[in-house]
Each structure stands twice: as C-alpha cells, then as structure tokens.
C-alpha cells in the first residue's frame, strides 16, 4: 500500500523541529532514517498527519570524542556507527552490534536515534546501550535533559522520551581498558531482527569475573539488564558461566509469536547469554 495522506515538513534545525512538534502535537511524527516509520506508514499502521523530517540537520549526525565520553549524534546512521574510528577503538562492541543490524540498505539510512526512540522489542542497539550504560540526551523547548540508558526502555515500543522531546545524542563512556565485550544474536532469517540478542561487557580480576554487564534484547517486550546472571558471576571463574546463564530468562515474560515460542526464546536467551559472556571473557585481559 502507499501511505495515507500527510503533510511533509523539513526542519532546518532542532529548534525548528521542536516548534513544529509543538504546533502539530500528536498528529506529527519525526522522520529520521525512516526505516522503521515508513514501512509502518506504507501498511497504514501509523498514519501521522504531519511528518517532520529532521534528516538534514547536519550537526546531529556527528560522532566525536567529548572529553571522557564518545558522543554519537542521534542522526548517525548504523553504517556511521559501524565504521567510526572512535567507536571501533573505544566502543568496539557497539560497532559489532551496528554491523549486524538489518542489511546494507537499512544500515545506510537507519539512525541510532530513530532506532532507540522507536524501541522495537527485537532491535539490536538496546542490548548494547544497556550493557554499555549509555546516557541519552533529549532536547525540548524547555531545555535538555539526560536519560540513563537503564531508564530509557519502559515497555513495548515505549520509551521515557516525552512528547515534544527529540533524542539528540547518545553518550557512552569507553569500554574500560582490559575489559572484554561482545554482541551475539540469533538472527531472524528474513528481517534480520534479533529473535534474541545479548550484549556483554566483562572485566576480569585474575581468572575471576569482576564486573559483568549484560543487555538482553528480543526476549521480552523491552530490552533489559540480566542482573540475576550478573550477580551469579561476580567473583566466580569461567566455569560458572553455564549455571549463571541458566538464569537469563528468570522472571521474564518472554514474547511468543510466529518466529519463536516463549519457551524457545527463553532457551535462546540462555544459550546466547552463555556464548556472549564466553566471547567477552576471552577478549578480556585479566
């Protein structure tokens, strides 16, 4: 199908976009890369009366080092994140994660800001954002505020970004020197979405795990930190991985659909959690 009728507006700056958002209220949707929104519009699942295109706002697509932190503009495409030198050197797992999103066309157009704001339960970034303890900066007419990564994902396709706010930056501290990180996923063969995806960042003390951070996507209606697994590993050696990973789906209401039953998803989560921790640990320096 083609989309229902809408008015197209091109914002020249964030300020411009914010005033248009205020003007049109919830009849408007922001358009970044369009790879989540446009397919929904073509199927008429989303029918915004006004589209505010922020895709040409130049300063939002930069990736740069800002003091101790890597600052990724909301409009950076997945291809940008994958190939950025700063990301490859200091946030290698994020580059790995971006490289596994969708396909080449999606990676060349889709943006990190759009993907995070859309909060698809099977998206890849959320797992990495949680494991890396990223911070998200949003701007509104009343100013800017920072949302901690762990507070961003609220429910199915629902984030804590309020109406009238635009996600402008993702700020992440570099992966600590000596830490190991990995992102592994079970790829849905047609769409490339993560039926389950696990991001792991681990630091070792000798042969034992010191700090473990795990982000899991695809399993539940929203991505989450697998804190039960993290605490089961603290202070233990690599032989504890299997039993710790068995708690990956504990207490989680797993999704069930035509791609995978809830039981299969839970099992995938346990298997991929173990594999991601193993891979991250093998990359860590003790």
């Amino acid at each position, binding site marked *: 199908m083609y989309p229902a009728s809408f008015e197209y507006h091109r914002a020249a700056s964030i300020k411009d976009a914010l005033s248009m958002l205020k003007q049109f209220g919830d009849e408007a949707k922001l358009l970044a890369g369009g790879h989540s*929104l446009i397919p*929904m519009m073509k199927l008429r*699942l*989303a029918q915004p009366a006004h589209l505010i295109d922020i895709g040409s706002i130049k300063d939002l697509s930069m990736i740069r080092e800002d003091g101790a932190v890597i600052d990724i503009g909301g409009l950076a495409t997945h291809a940008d994140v994958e190939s950025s030198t700063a990301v490859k050197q200091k946030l290698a797992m994020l580059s790995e994660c971006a490289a596994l999103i969708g396909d080449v066309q999606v990676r060349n157009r889709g943006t990190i800001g759009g993907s995070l704001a859309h909060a698809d339960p099977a998206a890849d970034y959320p797992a990495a954002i949680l494991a890396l303890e990223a911070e998200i900066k949003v701007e509104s007419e009343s100013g800017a505020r920072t949302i901690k990564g762990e507070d961003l994902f609220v*429910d*199915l396709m629902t984030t804590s970004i309020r109406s009238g706010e635009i996600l402008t930056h993702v700020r992440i501290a570099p992966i600590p020197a000596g830490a190991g990180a990995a992102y592994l996923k079970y790829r849905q063969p047609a769409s490339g979405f993560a039926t389950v995806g696990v991001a792991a960042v681990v630091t070792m003390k000798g042969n034992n795990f010191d700090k473990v951070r795990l982000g899991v996507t695809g399993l539940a*209606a929203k991505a989450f930190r697998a804190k039960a697994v993290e605490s089961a590993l603290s202070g233990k050696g690599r032989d504890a991985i299997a039993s710790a990973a068995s708690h990956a789906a504990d207490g989680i209401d797993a999704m069930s*659909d035509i791609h995978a039953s809830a039981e299969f998803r839970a099992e995938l989560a346990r298997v991929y959690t173990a594999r991601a921790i193993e891979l991250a640990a093998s990359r860590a320096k003790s």
Partner: protein
Amino acid sequence: MKIAGEQNLSASRDSVWELFNDPDRLSRLIPGCEKLEVLGPDEYGGTINVGIAAVKGVYSGKLKLEDKRAPEHYKISLDGKGKQGFIKGAGTLDLEAKGANETLVKYAGDVQIGGPLMQVGQRMIESASKMMLGQFFAAADAELKAHAVGQVARQGIFVNFWRWIVRVIASLFKRS
C-alpha cells in the same frame, strides 16, 4: 492466540462483579475507550482508540456477556473492526473471593486477529495485548479503591447524621 491470566484486585467479589457489569465504569477502564453504549441486555457497543507509540487505530465493536452466574462467572464475546484489521474473541471471566477486600480475577480466552495488523504486527500482538490488559487491571484496581473511598465517605455522612438524630432525641428526653 490464547490469552489467560490471573490478577488480584483489592475489593470484595461483589464490588468487582458490580464493576465488571457496569458499562459506564468499564468504559473508563478500557484504554482508549470513549464510551460503551448499551445495545441490548448484556450487549454493549463502542469505539476504542488503540495506540502503542506510532501505531494507532480506531476500532468499533460489540461486546456481549453471556452465561452469567453472579457474582462469579460470565462468558465474554468480542467482535471488533478497524481500518487495520479485525479482532474476534471469546473468553471467560471467573471471580474468586480471596478475602473481604481481595478478589482473584481469572480470565481465559481465544482471540483471532486479522488484516494488515496481523500480517505485519503479529510478532507484537501478544505483547501489546498484555500491555493493554495490564493497563486495564491497574485502572480497575484504582477505580475500585476510589469507589470504596466514595462509599465510606457517604456512609460516614449517614452515620454521623443518624448519631445527631439520636443525640437530639436523647436530649429531648433528658429535659423532661
């Protein structure tokens, strides 16, 4: 798609039964519901604005309650249509008294969803339904608590009025 679950509500079974049979109060609990009109005995019609993030749609439908066994059980059948698809469902609702102010609501049913919504959104239908059921029960719990407070306030006024009458009559007798 099978839906089943249990939920505790903080009110007596009679209060919960009363709520689940009152179209005016029910319409306020259903997320996005504007109004439930009475079409016939135990038959209601209305429109719901369903919205999860950008996915929004208006559905108009009919709800029918059958096999009523007050205050513990009824069967619901649902038939809704919108531009993005249709929803058809049938299920049962059972209320179990757990205490003077606690009722366990057990629901079980089968829902069929079709049209573009199904073709494209199938992988999220179950999560979306769970989210809406969660919102419904949270609103039901809040409504039951507010309703109880309203009743206590009304009882308080009545009791105080009665006590005042008794005092007046007693004072009349004292004088003589």
